[in-house]
């Protein structure tokens, strides 16, 4: 028997103007920003913003807390760095290769982890990421504690020389915007609506005939792949892939960025990434206190501002962001 109406997909929210406007404002800001701010800082923030957006796709729209996203970010970095340095691939190919490896890892981890719910999911992703951290520590090609250093930035499409900071910046910006739009499209597609239905009430989505585990796995792989784009790009920008990016504290950091910006908001992770990266940049002289401050921000956000910066703003202005 056919369904009379598709209860999840039919109720479409009214077309929102606030998100496109905010997107134009954000893009304009990023285009003029290198005139005022150090481009390397901006590139770092953009890579983390993309990482956080990828992570948010899972926690914000499927309700799955992955505590091991550093795995895809860091391993994509290793693979891209290795491809660019040892195999001499051009940067775009190196990043694509890193991304594909991240997607493959996401498929394996996702297939294992989505069999479990809630808190188990977080612990399993964390444990598997820690396993791959130890692989990174011991595998010969990752360079152990040294990481892969002096990765050449190369020439993009054999034309644009990425050694130039401005060229590099606009390449990173283009990658970020493309992935951001992809995520935006996914969230607002029928597929995205099903993801939100799973987040709200999984048994009901199952009873409506959706094979929720396939949806969750696809969302997981997509999230891991996009995290891989961020990691690969970061490795090319900083010419370095190191253990820091696969360690679980990096997984914690991306959770923090998303939480500060606002879980389940489109622009929240971007704002959160900029807040946290600038905080780390300006507070670097305080050494260990940065960790303490991060912890305090975590606790404050969880107890008082669960909507995050962008979520609170959207709530205040009664718009969607």
């Amino acid at each position: 028997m056919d369904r009379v109406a598709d209860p999840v997909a039919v109720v479409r929210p009214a077309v929102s103007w606030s998100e496109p406007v905010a997107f134009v404002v954000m893009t304009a800001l990023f285009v003029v920003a290198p005139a005022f701010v150090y481009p390397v800082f901006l590139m770092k923030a953009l890579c983390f913003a993309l990482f956080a957006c990828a992570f948010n796709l899972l926690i914000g729209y499927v309700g799955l807390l992955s505590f091991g996203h550093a795995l895809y970010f860091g391993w994509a970095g290793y693979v891209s760095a290795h491809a660019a340095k040892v195999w001499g691939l051009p940067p775009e190919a190196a990043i694509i290769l890193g991304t594909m490896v991240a997607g493959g890892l996401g498929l394996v981890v996702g297939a294992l982890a989505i069999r479990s719910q809630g808190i188990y999911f977080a612990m399993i992703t964390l444990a598997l990421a820690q396993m791959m951290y130890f692989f990174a520590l011991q595998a010969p090609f990752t360079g152990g504690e040294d990481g892969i250093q002096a990765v050449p930035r190369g020439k993009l499409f054999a034309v644009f020389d990425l050694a130039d900071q401005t060229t590099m910046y606009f390449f990173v910006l283009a990658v970020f915007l493309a992935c951001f739009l992809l995520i935006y499209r996914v969230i607002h597609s029928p597929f995205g609506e099903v993801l939100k239905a799973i987040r709200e009430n999984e048994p009901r989505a199952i009873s409506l005939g959706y094979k929720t585990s396939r949806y969750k796995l696809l969302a997981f792989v997509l999230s891991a792949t996009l995290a891989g784009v961020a990691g690969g790009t970061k490795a090319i920008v900083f010419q370095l892939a190191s253990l820091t990016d696969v360690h679980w504290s990096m997984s914690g950091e991306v959770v923090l960025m998303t939480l500060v910006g606002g879980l389940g908001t489109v622009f929240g992770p971007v704002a959160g990434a900029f807040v946290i990266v600038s905080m780390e940049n300006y507070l670097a002289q305080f050494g260990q206190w940065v960790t303490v401050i991060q912890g305090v921000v975590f606790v404050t956000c969880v107890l008082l501002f669960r909507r995050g910066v962008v979520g609170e703003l959207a709530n205040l202005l009664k718009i969607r962001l």
Partner: protein
Amino acid sequence: MFEIFGIPSQALFGQLLIGLINGSFYALLSLGLAVIFGMLNIINFTHGAQYMMGAFVAYLLLQHIGANYWWALILAPIAVGLTGIVMERLFLQHLYKLDHLYGLLLTFGIALIIEGVFRNYYGSSGQPYQVPALLQGGRNLGFMFLPNYRAWVIVFSLVVCISTWFVIERTRLGSYLRAATENPALVRAFGINVPRMITLTYGFGVGLAALAGVMAAPIYNVSPLMGSDLIVVVFAVVVIGGMGSIMGAIVTGFALGVIEGLTKVFFPEASNTVIFVIMAIVLLIRPSGLFGRAA
């Protein structure tokens, strides 16, 4: 001296002993996590930091007021347990009606704060802690040398684990606890102060972590980061055992410690990862863990 599978007995039993020691800590920590999760529905990410605090309290007691190991064994769990109680009253109690993930995030944040503060004052390197005079030395068992302290750790943690199991599964207090885990509203209707029970349970779980920390102090150095990597392994142990059963946590803890120790002998490269590999296999076969109930 004889050989087993081409491995000298000293090396084999030595690693087996280290495995049992690690297993004691896995068991104590995963037991605490399981008790806390049962009552609070929160995965206590601060557990590793609280284990570290236990070791530090022991170290500071010795340094500043000269209280020895035996005093630390009593005082450190109480002190750290009290900080846990304060933490539960101040922060955790506001999260019970929210999604589980906020409990994880909050306790993760608190772990960052605690470890950051300790690293700030004590650096990342370890401080040595003497084995208590009573337990120094060891005995030769013929096939291996057994340091007294290590034997003590294994025996004492077994005793603590079994007593905890006994209290929860076989006493009236434990039956209240289990009932409150199943249906807190009904238990409150019988006139039992469930919120206070939750607070005390958290304090007890945290105290167990601190106790493990004190016992670990003479074996590993006392360092601010001693708990942060351990806690991830303990999470894997908890996933393998499943959250449902106290005995499951104890048995899995010891068993995985031993397996890890044996891996160090036969295939050293994999010793860091073996527990995670086992976790992946267990998840394929039994997604709710070896002793867990299906969610």
